[in-house]
């Protein structure tokens, strides 16, 4: 059993494609037995970073230490104890779930029993179903099962819940927490802040190939200050926004969604101020939400943009 405090250490990783800098020198360490998350919007460089560590891409420069060994790229020995679930995976067609798992099991010298994995990912009833007949959530669970089949110490899961409905996403979260309980180290990428917040022991927020902030989800949220967030929808009016800023309110406005986000320690007084100002400029406030700050707000505070602009 490998026992390192940090199972993966990454220093100044860099990868460019022509003029595009995909990964721009991130440094981080992943603690054994933890869930480590790379959080960032699409195109932030999460997947490229992960694929460099997995051995799918060669970095231009940088240092990777994995299982205590500094490597240029991971070899067969490391692959024996690593499990990977890629962002998009198709399966070999016309094979059943069980056959797919059995085939992947045969790639490794060691691993779990296929039936155990089927049970763990709740696909026992689908064991003899062809993979193309599975739903999105079941396919994602099968992808997790494939990542698990060699009983890995370290798992890389690239956006394992993207495209799933809320219930299927919750199911995957449960599986990941169970894996953590079994002592697996999980490296996760996601652009869902609630996923990172719910699962992660450590979060690295990435943007433009760089890590812009890292820490536990709680620490990251605390770092932006403010006890509450007020979200309202209001049409764009620059004078109105200027007036709020002159009142020293911490706010951001997304004109595409007409969404105003205000961070505050005094909810009642801030609401009062908002209503009065809106009335003054004859603006209508709708869809008011008062909530706790989250990682989305951290990202917004750090970059001035939202994690999922399309959402």
């Amino acid at each position, binding site marked *: 059993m490998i026992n390192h405090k940090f199972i993966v250490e990454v220093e100044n990783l860099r990868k460019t494609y022509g003029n595009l800098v995909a990964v721009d020198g991130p440094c981080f360490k992943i603690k054994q037995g933890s869930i480590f998350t790379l959080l960032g919007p699409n195109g932030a460089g999460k997947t490229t970073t992960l694929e460099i560590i997995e051995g799918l891409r060669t970095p231009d420069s940088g240092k990777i230490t994995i299982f205590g060994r500094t490597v240029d790229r991971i070899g067969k020995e490391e*692959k024996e104890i690593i499990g990977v679930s890629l962002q998009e*995976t198709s399966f070999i067609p016309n094979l059943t779930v069980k056959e797919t798992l059995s085939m992947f099991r045969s790639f490794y010298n060691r691993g779990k029993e296929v039936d155990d994995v089927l049970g763990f990912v709740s696909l026992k009833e689908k064991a003899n179903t062809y993979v193309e007949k599975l739903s999105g959530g079941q396919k994602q669970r099968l992808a997790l099962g494939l990542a698990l089949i060699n009983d890995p110490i370290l798992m890389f899961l690239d956006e394992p819940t993207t495209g799933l409905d809320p219930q299927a996403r919750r199911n995957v979260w449960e599986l990941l927490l169970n894996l953590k309980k079994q002592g697996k180290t999980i490296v996760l990428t996601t652009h869902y802040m609630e996923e990172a917040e719910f699962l992660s022991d450590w979060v690295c927020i990435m943007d433009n190939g760089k890590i812009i902030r890292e820490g536990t989800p709680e620490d990251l949220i605390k770092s932006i200050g403010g006890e509450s967030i007020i979200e309202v929808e209001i049409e764009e009016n620059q004078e109105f926004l200027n007036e709020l800023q002159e009142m020293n309110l911490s706010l951001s406005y997304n004109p595409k969604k007409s969404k105003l986000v205000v961070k505050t320690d005094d909810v009642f007084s801030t609401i009062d101020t908002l209503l009065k100002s809106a009335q003054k400029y004859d603006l209508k406030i709708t869809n008011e939400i008062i909530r706790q700050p989250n990682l989305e707000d951290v990202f917004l505070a750090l970059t001035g943009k939202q994690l999922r602009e399309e959402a």
Partner: protein
Amino acid sequence: MILKNSFYLFKSVIRQKDYLFWFLAFPIVLLVILVTIFSSTTDVERINLSLYLIKPEQGEFSNIIYDVFNNLSSGENKIFDLKVFNSISSKDNMLSDLKSEKVNGIVEIPKGFDAALLSNFAFKSFGLSFEPPTIKLYSLKHSTTSQTASLIVKNIFERFDLEFAKRMKDIKEYEVETEIVGTKETFSYVDFLYPGILILAIFFTGLLGIGSELAWYKEGKIYKRLHVTSLSPISFFSSFFLSRAYFIIIQIVVVSAICKFVYKSTINPFNPAFLFYMFLSTVTFCAMGFFISAVSKSANSAGIVGQILQFPMQFLGGIYFPVQGVPWFIKWIVLINPITYLCDGVRGSLGIMSSTYPKFLSVLVPLIYIVIFLYIALKKYMVSEFS
């Protein structure tokens, strides 16, 4: 591990109904259609010629001639339907039958033939020479069947190795086309088509099957998924090609069974030369499919490339008919087409028809393609998918 994975990959392909249709059923359907059109059964090539023999008297030499023709007119492999006349009185009717193609030939042994022949032998021993007796052979000009009959008859007389046969005089209508008779006696379209259809089936499996499948694996990021496991690319491709080899074996067995048992092909499928060319075809077209998958970005583009290539290669490779005489502007396709050499090689080795190209070319050209295709494909895959 390679063997185990090859079974999974084989299951994956054998469960695809469209795959089974296009790569197994379709070549068989094509075989049946072509054989039905060009030779309805194996018996179609048997020659059954109708012949009249006029033999007005008994004699030692006349009887020998009669016995020979009689033997050739009985049994399962008979050549002639023979009718013997002991009188020349109805000769006009016989000639009328010949002209109306009720009969394909008439052999007339003249009266006094045996006596004349014996006299000739006797006088020859004293150094004297007489006019030889003449056997007349009547045939119909512009009738291929009649000419074939007359040629066969002439050959029979030559084989008697008797003096009277050498002295036989042809009638004016008599024409000789030895090639036609030779081909008619031995050629079978099933034998011609059988190795061609197998090469076609293997060609489809390699070019259209493997090309698109491997390109789809690339498109679906299957290689990427495999690359993060401890499976080596060589192991994966070995398993994959082994699985397709199982399929090709099924193609060979099924097509061979149909050709042997339904169409009574004379080709022995266990002939080492036949098996060698089937193996060479398998490697050539698998390498070709591998190459197409490597240079195509998607399964769709691999399919399009395959479709574009398959038509000229299929029809200008000599699968269905000989292609030596095609016009010069498409001759180059024939010459660069590996199917041309594989078909020519296997047919030449089996004696179905004489080889157009030297034997070494039938092996060398496919080998050159194999080396080029494998080199480019492996290099491309190693850079794009497994670097």
